[in-house]
């Protein structure tokens, strides 16, 4: 087992990892930028090294500085958390070259699943259903139209180098195709310097349902069932839950089997998530694979009672997994609490938290790195806490979330607590009737 792990991250996830390391008797090293001197992860680690000024490029994303910190502290493993360098194959490679264990998959696995097109090719070859679409880039509008006719409208044009919604267009019928083709290409060129476009069937009213997976170093893989992450704003998840209100035992078995097949196809090492889109007919399609621990891993931990960070570390240390699959025994919901003003277009609200009182009690878990008197730096993301509740039924979980949100007092900065309070009251949410377009339709300010 590792003697000392350096956590190449910050905020709540760094603290989360430190906690598990402590329980495992592993020493911890925190790294931090000068903006994070007072951060909890720095306080609770056994050692801490300041590695740079606030900008991420000079601190949390800076591989030489992080490796220097590994060197002077003699850490034998690095945990990258999520975001930052968690899916940076170069970083994983550098760690390997220095004889430091990167707690996660191999560089090749990161690369293969990081590129949208090779990921899809890999999945198709493995027999995992994918969104019907072009094989690679669409050469021209004529080919595009022929393919769209075959797949059936509506279709989506997507930039291969893209992300964040740029270079994406929904085409509802052939008559619109040429127009959208041109604008998508121009936008992609401007935003990414690459006007390559691929085409996919546009899944109507899709739900985002992902499967948590784990694979060991010996070729075994398993799944830990699903999380429904359909409540999103601009492709950012706001609420996650398990089990999905849309799931059936049959669908879970099919999706779980597909997820495990995906792991076997690449001999996946570590914990990861296979994201699927599920249409209203309960057809599911591979969307992408996240080769890291995720923000919402906590939801699975609450319903399956495993410490996923511990499993991650054990896998990295060469401990085999049983290969058994796991199914939710309870119901859990997570609300991401961000320092944003939901009444002003979710504008970020950094600054000093004068009062921070988080909810407690039976079935309530709060993962956070902030405290009364803490100043949220403006350089990083706005999530300040994850509020997770667990109960026997979905109805009870919603009631518990309402109770917990009412107890959540944060003063000094604006938070998305009021947004979540209104969401919990929404009829469609309560009934489980929602898909990824939900927040586009629901005007919560007038709820």
């Amino acid at each position, binding site marked *: 087992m590792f003697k000392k792990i350096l956590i190449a991250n910050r905020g709540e996830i760094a603290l989360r990892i430190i906690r598990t390391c402590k329980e495992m008797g592993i020493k911890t090293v925190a790294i931090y930028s000068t903006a994070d001197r007072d951060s909890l992860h720095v306080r609770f680690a056994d050692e801490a090294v300041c590695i740079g000024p606030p900008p991420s490029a000079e601190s949390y994303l800076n591989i030489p500085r992080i490796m220097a910190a590994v*060197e002077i502290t003699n850490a034998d493993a690095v945990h990258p958390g999520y975001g930052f360098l968690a899916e940076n194959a170069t970083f994983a490679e550098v760690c390997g070259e220095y004889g430091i264990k990167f707690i996660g998959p191999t560089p090749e696995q990161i690369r293969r699943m990081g590129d949208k097109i090779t990921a899809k090719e890999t999945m198709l070859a493995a027999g995992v259903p994918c969104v019907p679409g072009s094989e690679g880039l669409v050469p021209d509008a004529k080919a595009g139209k022929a393919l769209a006719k075959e797949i059936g409208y509506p279709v989506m044009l997507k930039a291969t180098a893209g992300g964040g919604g740029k270079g994406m267009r929904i085409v509802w019928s052939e008559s619109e195709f040429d127009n959208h083709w041109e604008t998508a290409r121009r936008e992609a060129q401007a935003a990414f310097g690459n006007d390559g476009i691929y085409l996919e069937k546009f899944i109507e009213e899709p739900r985002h349902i992902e499967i948590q997976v784990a694979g060991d170093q010996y070729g075994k893989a398993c799944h830990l069932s699903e999380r429904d992450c359909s409540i999103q704003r601009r492709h950012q998840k706001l609420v996650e839950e398990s089990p999905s209100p849309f799931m059936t035992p049959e669908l879970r078995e099919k999706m779980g089997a597909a997820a495990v097949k995906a792991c076997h196809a690449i001999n996946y090492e570590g914990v990861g998530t296979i994201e699927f889109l599920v249409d209203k007919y309960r057809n599911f399609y591979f969307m992408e694979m996240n080769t890291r621990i995720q923000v919402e891993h906590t939801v699975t931990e609450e319903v399956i009672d495993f410490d996923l960070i511990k499993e991650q570390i054990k896998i990295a240390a060469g401990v085999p997994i049983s290969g058994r699959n796991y199914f939710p025994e309870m119901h859990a919901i997570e609300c991401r609490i961000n320092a944003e003003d939901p009444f002003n277009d979710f504008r970020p609200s950094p600054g000093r938290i004068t009062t921070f009182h988080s909810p407690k009690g039976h079935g309530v878990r709060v993962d956070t790195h902030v405290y009364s008197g803490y100043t949220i730096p403006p350089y990083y993301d706005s999530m300040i806490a994850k509020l997770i509740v667990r109960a026997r039924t979905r109805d009870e979980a919603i009631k518990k979330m309402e109770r917990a949100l009412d107890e959540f007092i944060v003063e000094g900065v604006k938070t998305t607590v009021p947004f979540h309070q209104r969401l919990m009251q929404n009829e469609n949410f309560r009934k489980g009737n929602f898909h990824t377009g939900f927040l586009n339709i629901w005007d919560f300010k007038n709820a």
Partner: protein
Amino acid sequence: MDVNQIQELIRLVSKSKIAEFILKEGDFKIIIRNQLPGAEQSSSPSASVVAFPPPVVTIPGAAPTLPPPAPAAPPAPAPSAAPASASEAPPPEAAPAGNWLTIKSPMVGTFYRTPGPDKPPFVKVGDTVDVGTKVCIIEAMKLFNEIESEVKGKIAKVLVEDASPVEYDQPLFLVEPL
């Protein structure tokens, strides 16, 4: 001697008229120097705390041998923020004045005072430095980086022991401006 006792000690010494206080307990030694009222600058007494790092452990056969890191600063800050490791100080010199400049580390790595094992140090206390004067080497991942001063003045104090690990922004030298 635990953190609370050390804090209490600092508090007591800084309140007193003691100029220098040395306590030795087995392997542990602490020197606390007081800037007494009537000295050059700051009106409030500031105590500088000097604590010696644990002995350097060399693991035979492991290459390269790196010294263990200096103990992490205790969570509750001492009255004045002090670096965790310090140089062997000569007989009591003037307490740090308010206008002294600090040369801070621009990177993470291991601090070396000399360009090579048998060479003399880049700078000593009392040397004059200018912008661009090489003051030390910081090594990371087998790359040796010569660090240049960004200030002009006279080296008043060397704050880090040779071959110690340093972090970003860690004070390395105190410089008295000319």
